C-alpha cells in the first residue's frame, strides 16, 4: 500500500494540466460556465455603452437644431417686417458679430451668388432644397484654414433668394468622438476585467473540484485515511467535502472492523484446527486398537463440533448485525421472553446453587424478534452461570420512561471498568488462561441483538458483580 501511495503525484495547488491541455479546459464545466457568464456580461455592457453614446450624441444634435430653429424664427420675423433689405442688414450685422458662437449665415441671389454672410460662397455639392442640410465650411482657426462640419437649414425666400442659417458643429463632433473613445476604452477595460474574473472563478472552482478528485484517487489507491482538505468557508464545496469526509470515515471504520473480524476469525479458528490436526496425527501414530481409535475420533468430532458452534455463533451475529431479510419483528411481551428463558435456565441455576430472582413488571412490550432476544438472554444467563460461580442471579424487566429495560445481574467477579467496552468485541475473553469453555462471542451477539432492536447495552457494577442492562424503545402500554 505504501508503494502505491508513493506513485501518486503530490497534491498540486493549481490544476496546471488543464492549462497544458486547452481542450480539457474547454470541456470542464467551470470553463463553460465562465464563458457563458462572460458572453452575457459583454452583451449587456455593449448595449449599455451604445445607449449612452446614442443618447448623448442625439442630445447635442437636438440642441443645435433648437438653436438654429430659434435663429430662423427671429430672422423670419425680421424679413416679415422689413423685407429682403432688412434681412440682408440684420444678417450682415450678425455675421460680423462674435465668431465664438459658431453661427453661420449666408444670403444669396437665386443663382447662388452670395449677397451677405460669413460663408465665402454656396457650399459645394449641397443641393438647393429647403430643410435641414449638412455641409462643410472653411474656417480659420489659429491662422490656418480647416474644413469644419456644419449643420444648417435653408429657406427659399419668395423671389428665389436663399437664406442659409447654420452652425459649425465641429465642437459637437469632437465631443461625440470623445464620448465614443471613452466608452470604447471603458468597455475594453470592463471586458478585460470580466475575462480575467471568469478565468479566476473557473480556476478556483476547478482547483476545489480537483482537490476532491485527488482525494478520491488516493482513497481508491488504498489510502483510506486521506481526506479532502476544508477551507473553512462553509460554502457548498466545504459542505460537500465535509460530507465526503464523513462518508470516508464511515467506510474506514467499517473496513477496519471487518479486517479485525477477519483476523480474529482466522486466528481463533487456527488454534482448534491445529489441535484437531494434532489429535488425528496422534491417533495415527498411536496404538492401533479399536478402543483408542474410537476415542480419538470422538475427540476429533467434539473439536470439530466446537468449531462449528463458533461458526454458527459468528453467522448469528452477522445475521443480527446485517439486519437484512424480511422483518420478523412482532409485538413481544419482554417479560414473557425473560420468564421463559429464566424458566429454561432455572434447573441449571439451582444445580449450581444460584438463587434465581425474577422481577418482572407486567405489560412491558417491545417490537422485536423473539428468537434473537431469547438467544441474547440465554447468552447472558450462560455467562452469569459460568463466571459468577454462585450467589444471587437476578433477571429484571421494567419500564423506564420511553424505554423497556431488561437486566441480568450476578454476584460474580464483575468486569473491570476499563474492559467494559472491549468485552463486546468478537473473541474477547478476559480470562487469560481461558479455562472456562466459551468462544468469546456471547456478548458480541448480545450487542448485535440490542442494536438490531434500536436499543443499547451497558455493563454496570452490581457491587459486587455484573449487571448487564439492555434498553429498547418500549411500545405504548
Amino acid at each position, binding site marked *: 500500500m505504501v508503494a502505491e501511495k508513493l506513485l501518486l503525484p503530490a497534491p498540486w495547488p493549481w490544476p496546471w494540466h488543464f492549462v497544458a491541455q486547452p481542450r480539457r479546459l474547454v470541456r470542464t464545466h467551470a470553463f463553460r460556465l465562465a464563458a457563458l457568464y462572460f458572453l452575457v456580461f459583454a452583451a449587456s455592457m455593449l448595449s449599455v455603452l451604445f445607449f449612452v453614446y446614442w443618447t448623448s450624441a442625439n442630445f447635442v444634435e437636438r440642441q443645435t437644431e433648437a438653436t438654429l430653429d430659434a435663429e430662423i424664427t427671429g430672422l423670419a420675423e425680421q424679413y416679415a417686417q422689413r423685407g429682403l433689405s432688412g434681412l440682408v442688414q440684420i444678417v450682415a450685422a450678425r455675421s460680423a458679430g462674435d465668431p465664438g458662437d459658431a453661427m453661420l449665415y449666408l444670403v444669396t441671389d437665386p443663382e447662388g451668388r452670395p449677397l451677405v454672410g460669413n460663408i465665402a460662397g454656396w457650399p459645394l455639392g449641397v443641393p438647393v432644397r429647403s430643410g435641414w442640410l449638412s455641409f462643410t465650411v472653411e474656417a480659420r482657426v489659429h491662422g490656418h484654414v480647416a474644413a469644419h462640419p456644419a449643420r444648417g437649414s435653408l429657406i427659399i425666400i419668395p423671389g428665389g433668394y436663399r437664406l442659409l442659417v447654420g452652425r459649425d458643429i465641429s465642437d459637437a463632433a469632437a465631443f461625440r468622438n470623445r464620448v465614443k473613445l471613452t466608452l470604447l476604452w471603458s468597455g475594453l477595460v470592463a471586458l478585460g476585467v470580466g475575462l480575467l474574473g471568469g478565468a479566476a472563478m473557473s480556476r478556483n472552482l476547478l482547483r476545489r473540484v480537483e482537490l476532491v478528485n485527488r482525494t478520491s484517487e488516493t482513497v481508491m489507491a488504498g489510502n483510506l485515511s486521506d481526506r479532502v482538505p476544508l477551507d473553512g468557508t462553509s460554502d457548498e464545496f466545504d459542505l460537500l467535502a465535509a460530507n465526503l469526509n464523513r462518508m470516508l470515515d464511515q467506510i474506514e471504520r467499517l473496513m477496519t472492523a471487518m479486517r479485525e473480524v477477519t483476523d480474529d476469525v482466522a486466528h481463533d479458528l487456527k488454534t482448534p484446527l491445529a489441535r484437531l490436526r494434532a489429535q488425528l496425527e496422534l491417533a495415527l501414530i498411536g496404538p492401533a486398537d479399536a478402543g483408542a481409535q474410537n476415542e480419538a475420533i*470422538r475427540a476429533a468430532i467434539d473439536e470439530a463440533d466446537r468449531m462449528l458452534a463458533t461458526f454458527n455463533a459468528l453467522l448469528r451475529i452477522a445475521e443480527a448485525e446485517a439486519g437484512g431479510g424480511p422483518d420478523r419483528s412482532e409485538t413481544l411481551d419482554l417479560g414473557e421472553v425473560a420468564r421463559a428463558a429464566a424458566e429454561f435456565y432455572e434447573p*441449571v441455576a439451582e444445580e449450581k446453587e444460584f438463587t434465581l430472582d425474577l422481577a418482572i413488571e407486567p405489560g412491558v412490550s417491545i417490537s422485536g424478534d423473539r428468537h434473537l432476544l431469547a438467544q441474547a438472554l440465554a447468552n447472558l444467563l450462560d455467562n452469569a452461570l459460568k463466571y459468577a460461580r454462585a450467589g444471587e442471579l437476578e433477571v429484571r424487566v421494567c419500564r423506564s420512561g420511553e424505554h423497556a429495560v431488561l437486566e441480568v445481574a450476578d454476584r460474580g467477579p464483575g468486569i473491570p471498568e476499563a474492559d467494559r467496552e472491549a468485552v463486546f468485541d468478537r473473541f474477547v475473553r478476559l480470562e487469560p488462561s481461558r479455562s472456562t469453555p466459551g468462544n468469546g462471542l456471547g456478548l458480541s451477539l448480545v450487542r448485535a441483538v440490542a442494536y438490531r432492536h434500536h436499543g443499547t447495552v451497558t455493563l454496570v457494577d452490581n457491587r459486587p458483580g455484573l449487571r448487564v442492562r439492555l434498553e429498547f424503545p418500549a411500545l405504548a402500554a
Partner: protein
Amino acid sequence: MKLLVIEDDRETASYLAKGLGESGYTVDCAGDGREGLFMASSGSYDAIVLDRMLPGMDGLAALGALRAADIRTPALILSALGSVDDRVKGLRAGGDDYLVKPFAFSELLARIEALLRRGSAGPTTMTLRVADLELDLLTRTVKRCGKPIDVLPREFRLLEYLMRNSGHVVTRTMLLEHVWDYHFDPQTNVVDVHVSRLRQKIDKNFGRPLLHTVRGAGYCLRAPD
C-alpha cells in the same frame, strides 16, 4: 424402509447413502432436483431427504411440485442456510423438518426416524403409555405404577415429546426445538439438567429405568426389555 436422498454434492450423497444403508434403510440417490422430483413422483418412498440448493431445479421448488401433485411423503430439508427465515421458508414449502449443514449423522438419523413415525401415527389417543408410565393429555397428569407424579408444565411437554418418540433416540437439538422452541445451542448443559430432573421424578424409586442417555446422540425413553 425406502429413502430417497436428493443431493448434488457427491461426497455428502455417498456419506448419507452409506450411513443410512448401515442403519438398515434402502437408499436411492438423485443428483439434481428434476431427477429427484421424477423419482419421488412414484410415491414409493417412505421419506425424502433433500438438499435445498440443487442444480436444475431448486430443492424447495421440487418439493412444492411434489406437494402440488398430492404426494405426502415426509421430507427433511438439508441446508447450509441456517437463519430462522430460511427455516420458515423451507417448512412453508412443504418440508416436514429442517436440518442445517453441517450436522451430526446421529441427529439426521433421529430426525428421519421421527418423520417415519409421524407418517404412521396411529389413531389419536388421549393417553400415552410406555411400560408402566402413563401420561394423560386431557387431565395433564402423569402416573407410574398407578402412583401420580407431580411435574411442572414444561416437564410435562418434555415427557410428552419423549413418550411420543418412545423407543427412538431424540437429540438435544430436537428437544430444544420442540419443547422450548429455541433454535440455538446454549453453551451450558441446560437440556441435560432438565432431563435429569425429569428422570428423578419418573425413574427414581421405580426399579427399572425408562429414560436412557444415548452417548454422543441424545436420549431415549423405552420400555425395559
